[in-house]
């Protein structure tokens, strides 16, 4: 049996909007992945620590408060510092187009905006776990 894909779904910063993160967590679980949900108000340090402890293949960051430009790249930076730069990171939330480009440059592999089909997100994590 193939090893289950392990994904950390995390809410960095103070943002309390958790509808999307929970829906995505559930969709990934239903697609057969092992999902660890951090809950709210996590610092980038908390998230990186959890990702390493849980030995995940990928991280999904959700932020709808507008603090993504500070928080998302910080997670990338800390992961690299801890030698876990191979963990793939995707982000989601209320994110203007020009920020999407900047986040990608900062090492966020993909950014999912409102209205993204769940199957696209599932597929992303499946591909990411295969090293794609």
């Amino acid at each position, binding site marked *: 049996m193939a090893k289950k894909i392990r994904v950390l*779904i995390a809410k960095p*910063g*103070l*943002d*309390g*909007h*958790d*509808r999307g*993160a*929970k*829906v995505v*967590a*559930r*969709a990934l679980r239903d697609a057969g992945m092992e*999902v660890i*949900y951090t*809950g*709210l108000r996590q610092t980038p340090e908390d998230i990186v620590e959890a990702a390493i402890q849980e030995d995940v293949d990928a991280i999904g960051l959700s932020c*709808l*408060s*507008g*603090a993504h*430009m*500070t*928080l998302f790249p910080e997670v990338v930076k800390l992961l690299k510092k801890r030698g876990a730069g191979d963990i793939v990171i995707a982000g989601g939330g*209320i*994110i*203007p*187009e*020009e920020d999407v480009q900047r986040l990608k440059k900062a090492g966020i592999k993909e950014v999912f*905006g*409102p*209205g993204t*089909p*769940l*199957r696209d997100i599932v597929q992303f994590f499946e591909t990411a776990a295969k090293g794609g």
Partner: protein
Amino acid sequence: MADSEERKKLEKELRRWEATTLKDALKALPERRKEFVTTSSRAVKRLYTPLDLPDTFLKRLGKPGEYPFTRGIHPTMYRGRLWTMRLFAGYGSAEDTNERFKYLIAHGETGLSVAFDMPTLYGYDTDEPEAKGEFGTCGVAVSSLEDMQTLFSGIDVGRVSTSMTINGPASVTWAMYLAMAEERGVSRSSLRGTIQNDILKEYQAQKEWIFPPEPSMRLVVDTFEFGSKHVPQWNTISISGYHIREAGSTAAQELAFTLANGFEYVRWGIDRGLRVDDFAPRLSFFFNAHNDLFEELAKYRAARRIWAREMRETFGAKNPRSWLLRFHSQTAGVSLTAQQPEVNIVRTTIQALAAVLGGTQSLHTNAYDEAYQVPNEKAARIALRTQQILAHESGVANTVDPLGGSYFLEAKTDELEEDAYRYFDRIQGLGGVIPAIRKGFFQQEIANSAYRYQREIEDKERIIVGVNDFVVDEQPEVEPLRVTEASFKAQLERLKRMRRTRDKKKWERSLDRLRTACEGEENTMPHILEGVKAKATLGEICDVMREAFGVWEEPLLY
């Protein structure tokens, strides 16, 4: 429905229609779906008739301005006065938002509504480490009395009513507003407005909590008590279903959970020893206006009827003002699409229509660019114009409860009322609202509904225009709104200057007194007010409370 003779006649007529006219029609053209449902997945029948109304229909309906207020809380509704057009606004610094307030007032807004940024909502100052990256992004930062003074600079707070969406630290923010008004010589008795102050739905849905439920409820009741004595025209709470719905609930869950929370506040007030009629008239409500027009209308009408009944029958309120469910409404942010964003103007119009037909007291309409950002000026103006068109052009404000008597609407109103009572029983079975929060009941119910809704969109059982059908391949153009670095620096500077120049002794003493009050049983409001006047910041006051009360950790589930 009147007598049984007539009912029998109608039943017979209906059977005939089904066997002949309908049968032929279905043979020629089958219906589009096997089952039609509301946004909340409740069945919608093909046809509603007088047979769907109970014999007690007219009694349950009542007259506008009279118990049980199904048709509205005023006898003349919008013929007398239009609803308050109140746009939720806030970004960047107090100066930035003050400018937006003035812009909206200049374009015909009739009430103010403050959106605070995340650090403020959680009781942190702009310069605290927890606030990193969050300054002014989805609301305005108000860390001190000086910020509050700046926010309302040049605005007559003795005349305009102000709503403030703040919960965990609501009493602190309210104290800042009261102190700001006092310094300008505006009497407390003339101040009108609302603090959201609804902590229960924070644990359930919006998630902007600070302290655990019991001390939080104590703070809420402190504001009830203080308000009823000193700020008589202020709504000390806005019991909110809006966020419950945004987090994913159905209309029935929004209705049931909101009212259950409302009853919980009333119980806490009575347990404190307050007379129900002394504080109940200042309890107000806030509901979502989602896509399904008739279901939303039914929700508002059912809410009024249930509240009136329970306040009178269960809580023994004698003052008719205690029976009134007055509510603000906001169109559904969650329904806004990032795809073809201009189309959101149409969605918002239909949702706003539901709120108006449902008898709302005030209304916020979302701007079309909100799936991307806090609205830019033009988008906010169009949102305001939407309300003005409903008020002045559409004609729907010219009569009271225009859809009252619709068989469909009345049947749905009854159905939602029954759904709500079933939830009340379940909540009671779990030991009440706070034990049910600790068990994650509301949170799980809401998450389940959110997931089901999303699956329906995935499976195309539910069509969202521009998202899973009628899609175009385009990059939407939305004019960006950015919080500037200059605003951030100015805010930091103001805080620094204030901390440096304030009277240290007075400041320290006020925080000590507040600490003693928190650890004891006296009302915290006067001490918070003293702290604010002594230039204690939001974060400093909340730190005292965090120490005294502890912080909440929510049950993890998805």
